[in-house]
């Protein structure tokens, strides 16, 4: 399978040329094929959310709430919040503490925390590592892909679902999706 991330010839470790302004812009058409993302959403059932926060004003809470409403099981992972529940789900300390199959590991942590998360994702047999908006670690991405995982970087699981389902356009957001089909890709 070819990598969903555009590789630069000069430096295979860099997924994206930092000097290319389009690369700094999440949601640019073409970096991740719609089919790839639709495939992830259609096949996934369980999402482990690393860095999930019990604060209802944090972005992770928004995403968890949204994914739950779309029918996904979301397991919050956050050593600082163990003993609490977020949106009805008990928080676990570590990905390795999860006893059921995990499809997607959704990362709300700083880029330097990603390598450890990728190692754990590989160990528990997750199929996808998804780094949220603003989070990129190209070295860890290569590690995950080499182990057969699909990697998405610098994208929001809520926003991409909204784009592919057409819901994002309800807020006047341009997802560059044009279609004369009645059925949206998701939803």
């Amino acid at each position, binding site marked *: 399978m070819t990598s969903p991330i555009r590789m630069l010839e000069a430096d295979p470790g860099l997924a994206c040329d930092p000097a290319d*302004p*389009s690369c*700094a*812009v*999440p*949601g*640019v*058409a*073409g970096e991740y094929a719609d089919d790839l993302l639709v495939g992830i959403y259609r096949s996934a059932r369980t999402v482990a959310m690393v860095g999930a926060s019990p604060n*209802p*004003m944090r*972005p992770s*809470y*928004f995403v968890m*709430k*949204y994914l739950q*409403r779309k029918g996904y099981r979301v397991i919050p992972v956050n050593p600082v919040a163990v003993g609490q529940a977020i949106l009805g789900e008990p928080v676990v300390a570590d990905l390795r503490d999860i006893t059921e199959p995990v499809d997607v590991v959704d990362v709300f942590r700083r880029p330097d925390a990603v390598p450890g998360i990728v190692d754990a994702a590989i160990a528990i047999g997750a199929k996808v590592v998804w780094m949220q*908006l*603003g989070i990129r670690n190209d070295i860890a991405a290569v590690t995950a892909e080499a182990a057969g995982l699909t990697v998405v970087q610098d994208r*929001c699981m809520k*926003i991409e679902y*909204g784009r592919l389902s*057409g*819901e*994002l*356009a*309800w*807020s*006047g*957001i*341009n*997802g*560059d*999706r*044009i*279609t*004369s*089909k*009645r*059925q*949206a890709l998701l939803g």
Partner: protein
Amino acid sequence: MSDTPQPGIGEQPPLDSSETPEPARRSRYGIETRSIHAGSPPEPVTGARNVPIFQTTAYVFEDADHAASLFDLQTFGYIYSRITNPTVAALEARVASLEGGRGAVAVASGHAAQLVAFYTLLEPGDHFVGSRFLYGGSLTQLSHTFPRLGWQGTLVDPRDEAEVRAAITPRTRLLFTESLSNPAAVVADLAMLARVAREHHIPLVVDNTMASPILCRPFEWGADIVIHSMTKFLGGHGTSMGGVVVESGRFDWSADDRYPGLSRPDPAYHGLTFHETFGDFGFTMKARAVALRDLGPALSPTNAFHILTGIETLPLRMERHVRNAEAVARYLAAHPAVAWVSYPGLEDHESHARAARYLPDGAGSVFTFGLTGGYEAGVRLVEGVELWSHLANVGDTRSLIIHPASTTHRQLTDEQRTAAGAGNDVIRISVGLETAADLIADLDQALTG
């Protein structure tokens, strides 16, 4: 008034050709395709192919939890048409696409768009730098009404880098210009303004009304926010008021503490941090969820529908507007009763080189010219035309004409009129889509009288 129609400045440095347009956002589709399709997939429930007019105020919640998630902005969906409406949303997504932007908020008029944009970016006590060459109503809004909200401005020449730089203060939070000005047709040096704005880390906000996204896309030159009065070319048929604010998605609102409304928890939205939560459309969400919600200038769904229909033919219309404007400008330039013509498409216009760069497909169709016969000749011309409509608007399929000195600028002194580019001899026209020969014949009979 001198017979120099073109707002002159001193020696201008040559354009810096190292600054070239960059697509703000790559699209898979051409601008004609997007003018028709962007934002308007078939309506899923009925299959209606065109966007229905959702003449509706409110939307039923699935359950209490759904209602709570909507109010908390955790789920996308409709609540109340002051904030979002399905027909208006289709228009917003379409204009965002045409400008190469990330998101847009449509509002009731162009003036409301300016208010919503400024309100989202400025705190009381903040400062803005604006172009001196703006639509007269915008000059009034910026220099009289905005200061009453605590926003002080300095007006500058948008072609003069030294003047722009000198006007920026530590409290300056945005730079505002029209890409192609109404009515003087001054073409701003967008690349220069974007460079200065970037150096000071403030957004460049561009009113692109007179050019439309067909002739100029300010994001490609580094602008951060684009505004339109959709009342003009976007709607295009003189039917509907409307305005829109478009966000490029490239400005980092959290780089410093200057845009606390976007970078810090917002007390007007129970502690939500808009930029962090919504990323590259944080500005759009804030403009909608706070400015539109609390100031209230919602666009009517029926107006949105008419503007959507207008946009479908925008690329075709702009091409013909430009062709007719060029024909009329050349005719006028050769007429003995005409002292000067200020159309940047003419080779001797001071903005000609910038127009060739920023508006390569044509410098729009709104411009001014001067009559050798002064005030009286102006009154005679607007009364003598039969096909041209004497009224205060631009950007219609119909050709429009006005003599500012006897109408919009009547209350001013001679000096004030001259400074505003509305001297006694000045006529403003908006060239429409009629047969060019008919437009010229009508002007000819009225000028020769």
